[in-house]
């Protein structure tokens, strides 16, 4: 039989199963194969906070979504076209997101009494009419996998079902015409010490692939042509890895050792894990006893003259507040990475949110301004980390870096920058004792000298008490305090001289501007460009620097009749913009632990366009 082949621009596939089913691995392999095939890809892992929630239950479902395309894409996609569900709970949790008419591939063997009950199904959804709106492919994966691998010599029979995920991956590889060689090589490398495991996984992968080809269950294969992508050297990268590499790159560009002090916290721990591997780049990592110690050792390392950074998530940032005040008061350069997650309190540790913006602005006692930068994509985490270090050492200030769970775990193919294009970061540790005072300032940046212990002739004392201008001695003088508060603010304001102007995409002026920050960039830019192409007067501007704002922000805002501020919080940037510019901006908010979908942003814009005129 000759199979038909359908061509598509983009397909979104979601792998879902129990947290022990290996769905993250499956998704990563599919992504790798797609990237190597030449598609543009973007991914979104969505996993539970529990390491192993009870098997088969709804809270234990782990998912991994991949968008692969022949076009340039910016998000992991809205609604999936394809859902692979390894058990009833995975089906139950994810089916509501699937596009009408989409493909559902399930492991039929798991749809039995106890599993159905744990997922809250009264009957079997494979047998009733509930999936009639989808193309259901019900495959006995457990049985087929077991039959395929059971005769492998030295097979560990207790782990026989562990290759079901690779069987499912094989099915999708055939369905979407992906090459399997890179996954074969990966399996051979990954398990090279365990030949039986290699044999089992390869057998499962290939059996799945050939099963899909020969079982004639799919009416056609789908082809997503390679994207037209710029020539260059590529690698895949997640936001957290890009943050880590960015910090290391900054230390190399500054020719100064990197110190990273951190306490493990989801979803920031991976930055610590990555940096711990870069010891041959002379990176020093310090796993501290708690969040406060993590920022404390970082301040100590900055005082000692290193490129110093600490990393955490929202609850940890709250604990670091007092020490950050000390860093502001003593004007020491450092970077504070905050990978935001759902809050308040412990909140949603593995889910994304943008709700720490006001904490970043105001979460410290006293008048305590900090520079704030937020990367806009996994790749931008690399550049934003370098920018954060550059500003910190140039202005002698701590810089807050607001990533989020969506960026941290999302993966993109990265066209590596030319090394010559990365500007050096000048670092000067003062050595000249002539006319030295701890708080004399650079006239352009207002930076005080970075005079590090061990330097002869520059012995001095600093601390958290208010400083007298220039001498840095303790001062309770009322006029001095006012002056110093204003200077600390002025330092932040002057950073605006060093940051890029706000750029407008889509309509240059007109009806609606989408003003965004952080990880919502991709979805909102895509929404804007699609609407613009459809003939609507919609522009998009994205803030990478939140404090200070770019100088042209107000001018940009005033080019549009309405400014919509989409945020994964309850309106934090919106509040700041209204307060600063007295513009009647429209908030668009979502706090579900999930990123924006392009469609919902478009819908909001259309609602505003339709209602306003």
């Amino acid at each position, binding site marked *: 039989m000759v199979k038909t082949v359908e061509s598509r621009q983009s397909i979104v596939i979601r792998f879902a199963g129990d947290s022990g089913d290996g769905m993250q691995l499956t998704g990563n392999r599919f992504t790798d194969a797609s990237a190597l095939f030449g598609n543009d890809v973007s991914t979104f892992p969505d996993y539970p906070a529990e390491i192993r929630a009870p098997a088969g239950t709804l809270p234990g479902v782990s998912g991994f979504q991949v968008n692969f395309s022949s076009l340039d894409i910016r998000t992991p996609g809205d609604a999936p076209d394809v859902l692979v569900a390894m058990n009833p709970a995975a089906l139950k949790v994810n089916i509501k997101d699937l596009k009408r008419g989409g493909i559902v591939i399930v492991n039929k063997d798991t749809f039995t009494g106890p599993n159905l009950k744990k997922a809250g199904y009264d009957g079997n959804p494979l047998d009733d009419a509930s999936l009639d709106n989808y193309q259901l492919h019900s495959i006995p994966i457990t049985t087929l996998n077991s039959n395929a691998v059971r005769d492998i010599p030295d097979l560990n029979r207790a782990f026989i079902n562990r290759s079901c995920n690779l069987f499912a991956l094989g099915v999708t590889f055939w369905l979407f015409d992906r090459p399997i060689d890179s996954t074969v090589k990966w399996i051979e490398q990954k398990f090279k010490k365990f030949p039986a495991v290699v044999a089992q996984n390869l057998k499962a992968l290939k059996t799945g692939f050939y099963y899909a080809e020969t079982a004639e269950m799919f009416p056609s294969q789908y082809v997503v042509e390679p994207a037209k992508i710029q020539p260059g*050297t*590529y690698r895949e990268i997640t936001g957290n890895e890009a943050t880590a590499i960015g910090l290391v790159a900054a230390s190399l560009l500054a020719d100064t050792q990197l110190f990273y002090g951190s306490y493990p916290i989801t979803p920031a721990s991976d930055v610590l894990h990555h940096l711990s591997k870069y010891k041959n780049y002379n990176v020093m990592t310090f796993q501290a*006893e708690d969040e406060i*110690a993590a920022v404390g*050792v970082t301040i100590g390392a900055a005082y000692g003259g290193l490129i110093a950074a600490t990393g955490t998530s929202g609850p940890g940032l709250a604990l670091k507040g007092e020490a950050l005040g000390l860093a502001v008061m*003593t004007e020491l350069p450092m970077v504070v990475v905050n990978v935001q997650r759902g809050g308040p309190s412990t909140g949603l540790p593995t889910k994304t949110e943008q709700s720490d913006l006001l904490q970043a602005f105001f979460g410290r006692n006293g008048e305590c301004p900090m520079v704030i930068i937020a990367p806009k994509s996994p790749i931008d985490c690399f550049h934003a980390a370098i920018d954060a270090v550059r500003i910190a050492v140039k202005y002698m200030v701590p810089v807050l870096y607001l990533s989020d769970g969506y960026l941290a775990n999302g993966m993109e193919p990265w066209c590596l920058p030319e090394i010559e294009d990365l500007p050096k970061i000048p670092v000067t540790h003062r050595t000249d004792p002539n006319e030295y005072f701890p708080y004399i300032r650079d006239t352009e940046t207002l930076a005080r000298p970075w005079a590090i*212990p061990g330097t002869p002739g520059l012995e001095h004392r600093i601390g958290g008490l208010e400083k007298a201008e220039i001498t840095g001695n303790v001062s309770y003088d009322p006029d001095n305090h006012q002056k110093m508060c204003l200077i600390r603010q002025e330092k932040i304001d002057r950073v605006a001289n060093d940051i890029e102007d706000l750029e407008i995409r889509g309509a240059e002026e007109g009806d609606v501007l989408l003003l965004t920050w952080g990880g919502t960039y991709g979805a909102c830019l895509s929404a804007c460009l699609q609407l613009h192409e459809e003939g609507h007067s919609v522009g998009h501007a994205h803030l990478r620097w939140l404090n200070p704002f770019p100088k042209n922000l107000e001018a940009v805002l005033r080019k549009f009749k309405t400014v919509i501020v989409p945020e994964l919080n309850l309106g934090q940037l919106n509040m700041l913009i209204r307060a600063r510019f007295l513009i009647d901006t429209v908030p668009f908010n979502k706090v579900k632990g999930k990123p924006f979908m392009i469609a919902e942003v478009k819908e909001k814009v259309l609602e505003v366009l339709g209602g306003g005129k």
Partner: protein
Amino acid sequence: MTLTHSGRIPVLKKKDFESDQEVRWCPGCGDYAILAAFLKTLPTLGIPRENHAIISGIGCAARFPYYVNTYGFHTIHGRAPTIASGLKSANPDLTVWIITGDGDALSIGGNHLLHCLRRNMNVNILLFNNRIYGLTKGQYSPTSEKGKVTKSTPLGSIESPVNPLRFAMASEATFVARTMDSDLRHMSDTIRRAQRHKGVSFVEIMQNCIIFNNGTWKPVSEKKTRAETTVTLEQNKPLIFGQKLDKGLRLKGLGAEVVEFDPETPPSDLLVHDVASPSSLHAYMLTEFDYPEMPIPIGVFRQVERPTYEDSLHEQNRIAIENKGKGDLKSLLHGTNTWEVNADGEEIRNDAVDV
């Protein structure tokens, strides 16, 4: 500051270490004596002035760095060990001092103290123990005795105090000592020994707060009673005390007892002090001695060797660089898993497969 004829090692005097800041502790505060002993000791250590960094938290003791002309950092409450640890990691050549008090170290900063000690950071911790909160004007502290009447405990404290030395011992400190503000020479000697110890050094200094807790150490700090109320620990010597050196300590079961004897013929079974005793039980037992039942031991309780945190930290990097070569920007960006896209849009896998 003057240099020796060789020009290499500066010969420093006490006044080289005095800062231009006016000292602002209450008149009669024990901190003056500690500062004097410290300033007297620094020039004897043979360390250039710029290599000293004094880190403090919050409290009366924490003002200390302002009065010493070295690098100094008056940080935030309880966190001095963290800032000191970061600094020492950044530059192991520095001589780092942590100046703290009983509230700063054992209440708000208890966690950091524990971890700084167990990591064996090569820093010197001087804990000024006056058993009261002075800067906040007189509340009980974690070392205040049970029943202590203060502003916040008008009916007496209901909490059991923590013993700083036992805390340090339990935290695996490698140098544990006690001295007192009223004995300048002993203080100076103890500070010097603490600095010479390679590894974390923990020194409790029994200090008087003349305003809020005057006389808290009176029986042990007064010269006329000290011989009877304290026992000075000396390496490899029997534990003998008393005005006439007529009392000693002897093991009894798992504890010890005081025995009296003719000073001409001390008994042969007296407890002999060993700072490096294979078991820490010896030092633990000494920390339990309290007046009036037992004399309070003064001196170095324990001193053992263990690799320091910062040495191990730098060693791991050195070995990684030796094994893998020093990383550069190119190797950093490329990682282990790249592919090329050529001008025709073809993709070619590079390198090894990343697992």
